[in-house]
């Protein structure tokens, strides 16, 4: 039994428990210190992931390969940046408690287990560890009605999705006799090998996971939870868990059920098209920028699913590149949204941004870069994300998907450039409060990555290529 494989997760979980004990035993408020410890824990886990050995352990239930490593690094970076953003905001909103970074940390452990799972049981354990921590986080501003509502909504709907997922898992187990990904893969080498019951099981698993990535038609929770949850939690929701859920979806569809492509491909195509269309159209009428970003994330998940629908390693490569770029853009955008505070109170209307370019040119420039990037305009990283997806779709002959994809990206561009319009063309409003230093650093780092990705695309693309080769053989 090769327990070293899970060393990053084990170490991170131990650090989490240590911080929890530390926070409880100290009498005074130690939020800042706990956040620093958490970021330190993410760093250590990241180093362990990079230097760690590869292979399969725990009787084939856990696998550490380059696909898992790629996603874990993304998740850890996302978690660390969110922790930085959350620190100042939570303090100002009066919800700066040390449990916040600890909950994030445990959610992150869950996500890391998700990306490494090689068995339907491990998958479910990771997913639930993540979800339980996220339920609490969504309701973290416990005196705020909207936050409590978001937490409750997320809990109820997510439990339903988990139930569906478990039902699917039991069907798969019942009709095949195993939950191990590799054994399933060996058993199902052709579509004809799968009994109808097993296919139903696969569909239920797919539905459960589609809920987690908020793909249409399982997206209903997203706008409400994004809007209601405290903004740092929304940042977290939009970045790391999305990466983890997408990674899990990729692995489950590709490894055990990869040979059943014809059975599930059309489902993914439909979900991708619906997500792209709904994400583009529903966002147009939004006035709340967090809600707008919720619809935008639905749309972006549609593009990512388009890569999965192709069912080749090129497609998976596209998804991985997409998720990396998307995580950076989203964290940066939300960093800008977190900076929207007037007289100590946070504001989240799009019209509150009016004339930002005269009040705070640097922030306006950063947000403009993110918006152009989310719209997929070249030279920004968002263009390359879409490029690899469409390349794979065209290669796979999925022309409908490609054409719908580019056209919805034009519709999407409408509301992204509307934000730029508000910032640059409208009359300036009242200035925002000064930005905290941590926020500026995060926004600057993600902004530089987004704007100058085109100079050095190779490292990310190569890493994604290696990772994609692992799961689609």
């Amino acid at each position, binding site marked *: 039994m090769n327990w070293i494989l899970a060393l990053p997760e084990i170490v991170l979980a131990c650090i989490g428990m240590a911080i929890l004990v530390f926070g409880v035993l100290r009498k005074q408020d130690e939020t800042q210190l706990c956040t620093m410890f958490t970021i330190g824990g993410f760093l250590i886990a990241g180093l362990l992931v990079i230097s760690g050995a590869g292979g399969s352990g725990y009787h084939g239930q856990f696998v550490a390969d380059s696909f898992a490593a790629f996603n874990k690094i993304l998740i850890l970076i996302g978690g660390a940046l969110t922790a930085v953003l959350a620190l100042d905001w939570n303090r100002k909103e009066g919800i700066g408690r040390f449990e916040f970074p600890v909950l994030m940390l445990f959610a992150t452990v869950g996500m890391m287990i998700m990306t490494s799972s090689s068995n339907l049981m491990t998958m479910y354990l990771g997913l639930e560890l993540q979800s339980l921590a996220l339920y609490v986080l969504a309701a973290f501003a416990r005196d705020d009605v909207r936050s409590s509502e978001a937490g409750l909504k997320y809990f109820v709907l997510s439990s339903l999705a988990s139930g569906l997922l478990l039902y699917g898992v039991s069907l798969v187990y019942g009709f095949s006799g195993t939950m191990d990904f590799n054994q399933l893969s060996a058993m199902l080498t052709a579509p004809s090998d799968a009994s109808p019951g097993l296919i139903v099981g696969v569909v239920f698993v797919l539905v459960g996971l589609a809920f987690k990535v908020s793909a249409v038609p399982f997206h209903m929770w997203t706008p409400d939870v994004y809007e209601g949850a405290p903004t740092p939690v929304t940042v977290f929701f939009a970045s790391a868990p999305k990466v983890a859920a997408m990674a899990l979806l990729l692995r489950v569809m590709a490894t055990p059920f990869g040979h059943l492509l014809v059975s599930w491909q059309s489902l993914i195509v439909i979900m991708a098209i619906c997500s792209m269309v709904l994400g583009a159209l529903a966002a147009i009428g939004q006035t709340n920028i967090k809600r707008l970003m919720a619809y935008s994330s639905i749309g972006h998940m549609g593009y990512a699913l388009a890569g999965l629908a192709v069912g080749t390693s090129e497609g998976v490569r596209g998804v991985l590149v997409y998720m990396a770029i998307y995580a950076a853009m989203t964290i940066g955008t939300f960093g800008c949204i977190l900076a929207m505070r007037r007289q100590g109170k946070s504001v989240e209307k799009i019209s509150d941004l009016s004339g930002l370019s005269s009040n705070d040119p640097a922030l306006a420039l950063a947000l403009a870069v993110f918006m152009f990037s989310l719209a997929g305009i070249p030279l920004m990283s968002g263009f390359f994300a879409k*490029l690899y997806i469409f390349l794979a779709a*065209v290669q796979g002959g999925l022309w409908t998907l490609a054409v719908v994809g580019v056209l919805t990206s034009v519709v999407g561009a409408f509301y992204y450039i509307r934000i730029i319009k508000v910032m640059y063309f409208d009359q300036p409003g009242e200035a925002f409060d000064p930005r905290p230093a941590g926020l500026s650093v995060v926004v600057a780092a993600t902004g530089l990555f987004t704007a100058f990705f085109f100079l050095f695309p190779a490292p990310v693309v190569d890493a994604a290529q290696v990772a994609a080769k692992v799961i689609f053989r």
Partner: protein
Amino acid sequence: MNAAGFPILSLITWLPLLGGLVILSVRGDEATVASNARWTALWTSLIVLVLSLVLWVKFDPTDGGFQFVESLAWLPQYKVGYKMGVDGISVLFVLLSTVLTPLCILASWESIQTRVREFMISFLILETMMVGMFCALDFIVFYMFFEAVLIPMYLIIGVWGGPRRVYAAVKFFLYTLTGSVLMLLALLAMWLYAGTTDIPTLMETKFPAGMQTWLFLAFLASFAVKVPMWPVHTWLPDAHVEAPTAGSVILAGVLLKMGGYGFLRFSIPMLPDASAYFAPFMFTMSVIAVIYTSLVALAQEDMKKLIAYSSVAHMGIVTIGMFTFNEQGIQGALFQMLSHGVVSAALFLVVGVVYDRIHSREIARYGGLADRMPAYAFVFMLFTMASVGLPGTAGFVGEFLVIVGALQVNFWVAMLGGAGMILGAAYMLYLYRRVMFGRITRDDLLHIMDLSPREWAVFAPLIVLTMWMGIYPSSFTGFWDASVAAMVKHHLAALESTVKLAGIAH
């Protein structure tokens, strides 16, 4: 490395961006920043102009291939590289961009008073994107520049434009973006078929006839919006009217040429069969554009709108010329694009002169200006004549060559295209009469100032260019003789091979 001994094209492309970064770093109070931004932008664009003149001198017109080629690995595993190079077709467009940019900066010297720094940065970024697009020899690199042009132009129209600027900016953005994303799909399909995005290689690749049709339509969606062809031209009058003078100049002078350049660089050489198949369709659309928009121009009340519609008509002549597939036609189209780049840019500057003084573009607001502004009247007259196509000015050569080329293909196309010239004379002279002649009826026009030295500095190079192109066109056509000849030969050979293949199949 290349004829210049250093990576001149990359330097011309990226230097303006560097200038933009320098302007970004300027600190101080608003007046200092504005003045520094103006001077830095002017000097940067002048240095770029000098560098592009080096390009002009060192260019070897006898060579029909690509020159000054630079190549860098960018995404080697996908055979995508950063590759730059110019041939006879693109080199003069590079020059057109680098000549117009300093003139635009000069023209905005006083008319732009708010957010001067941001304006100058946007303009320099715009120059980088335009030049990069004409130099790119890799399709992905081309596409990136082609679409990135939208960002600075959107901001220029939206921030410094007129009252309906937001509508115009958004319309401009979405129209052109819709076209370009369809081209992106075509580009991906070509990439997968040929295994590379290297433009010279793609030109040699023979795409199956069925695929060519779809690719052509996708390219058409993009380039037709940019040119713009009837009926997708409606964004242009809006954008022109609302854009600041310098924005209109670049829009008319360079951005419209991106569509024409796209047809010449991609559609015709890479998709010869589909181009030949769609040529009658292109002729029809172009002829409609010429006649229809000329008639619309006659009815305009706004000077900029009138010139905008005349641009659509002139670009219709360009598309007629390109799809004749003979040397006269294509040379004429190229010449027409170049002369339109100079003349319509100049006409927008001419409008900008009175707009700066009176703040109105309404034709009825003026009248009798010739009495008060003799120098202005002279400049306006010269460019009006050039736009009409008077022999001896730039406008004549291009239209003449296109009609000669069209006559070899179809009499009616030539005839109706020629009718556009007559209508052109009508609306331009009518405009001139209403603005310049007659009696001054308004008090503020009595004290209107004639051209200032700065404005002379803007117009002088354009006047010289217009006359030079009209009197001695060979110094320009000489650049692309070899390239166009190679292109026509390549096109005919490609069509012949298709016919042969069809013969074998039957």
